[in-house]
């Protein structure tokens, strides 16, 4: 058998291995997406880490409530409904991640029942109001997560950056397909982000 024969015979095997590796990576990425971003062990969480985590947990409960009401209100196009359902699922995933983070740091994480969400009258009465309220909420959340991805300690920066990316995706899904261009996301400190959500969080 010549070297060329061996090479030719090995080629399909290499291709199979390449395909298997690709499948593995895709499967792994899918698995991570399903499992969510897990909070690292929070043995040395700083005050700022916990503050971002507590804010994030409340904000994700709020987002989950928003998506549920938007689905119930049924004013947005049918094409947007899958995005609303995904948004609700992702908000739950983010909330679980922040809850784990806080519990890992020895705190008692809040539960959704601890909050009274307050939506201005008529928020879900029209598609435009539903959309604009959702964008106000999500932009404040994105701003806070961007701030956290810089202000949190090194062990949590990736977590907050990942949640920020996921939130930006939600904004993209909710933003009108035509009309104004989505503004450049601005990082917010907790005081500003908190003020932006204050009217919704009761």
């Amino acid at each position: 058998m010549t070297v060329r024969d061996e090479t030719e015979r090995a080629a399909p095997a290499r291709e199979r291995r390449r395909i298997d590796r690709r499948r593995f990576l895709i499967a792994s990425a899918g698995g991570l997406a399903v499992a969510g971003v897990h909070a690292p062990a929070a043995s040395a969480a700083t005050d700022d880490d916990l503050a971002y985590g507590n804010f994030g947990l409340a904000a994700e409960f709020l987002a989950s409530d928003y998506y549920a009401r938007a689905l119930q209100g049924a004013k947005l196009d049918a094409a947007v409904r899958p995005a609303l359902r995904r948004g609700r699922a992702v908000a739950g995933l983010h909330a679980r991640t922040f809850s784990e983070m806080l519990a890992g740091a020895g705190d008692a994480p809040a539960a959704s029942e601890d909050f009274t969400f307050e939506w201005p009258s008529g928020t879900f009465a029209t598609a435009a109001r539903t959309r604009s309220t959702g964008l106000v909420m999500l932009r404040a959340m994105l701003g806070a997560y961007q701030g956290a991805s810089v202000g949190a300690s090194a062990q949590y920066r990736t977590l907050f950056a990942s949640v920020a990316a996921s939130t930006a995706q939600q904004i993209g899904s909710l933003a009108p397909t035509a009309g104004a261009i989505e503004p450049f996301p601005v990082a917010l400190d907790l005081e500003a982000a908190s003020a932006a959500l204050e009217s919704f969080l009761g």
Partner: protein
Amino acid sequence: MRNRLVLLFLAVLAGVAVVAGASARPTATPPLTIYAGASLTEAFKTLDPAQNYSFGGSNALETQIRNGAPVDVFASAAPLNTQRLFSAGLVEKPVTFTANRLALIVPKSNPAGIQSVYDLRSKPVKLVVAAPAVPVGGYTLTVLRKMGLSSVLGKIVSRESDVKAVTGKVALGQADAGFVYVTDARAVSDQVTVVRIPAWAQPRVRYEVAVVTRSTNKVAARAWIKVLLGTKGQTALRNAGFLPIPKSTS
């Protein structure tokens, strides 16, 4: 003779009427002795002024019950105090009856210029809080930790024995700011300005009430708790700014 008989009959009739009148009057039940967290002062006195109250830090009241104080009902600003007594067999099973929130208060003159809780970090402030063992003191620590503001603990100038002492110091201008319950801030709203604490930083403030095991008037004590949990009690609490019984009482 006939007149005497008539007079005697009337006297007997009057005597019967007096006895009947006395027995028709409601039996005067002795007032209950109720120990309650200081923040409940206004609400409980409005709800039922006829009882004997002792208001104070729930931790101090718990200690007094442990030491054998003759108490019928204990209403605590934190489940920890009632649950500890329950574990020791000193109270019957506690029930949650209301909830509350924390606020930062500053004197009306606001000498430190505090507009937001975050200003505590950046401005020179004389801060007054309750001692950590007092429920509101523990809740204050939770708020500061949740907001990433533990550094302001260095600005505490006084740790008080109950929430009314904190409120008083701020109202009198002896401190620049203090953490109290929203309900206490409301009671001195003409003397202080409330600075809101965001919902995401609020601790889980739950109030519990229980009949004290040593009570000699348990029937009346249980009836009183029933009133507290009923419409009348809940209305009095809501009017004082308390929150309804939370869905999740864990």
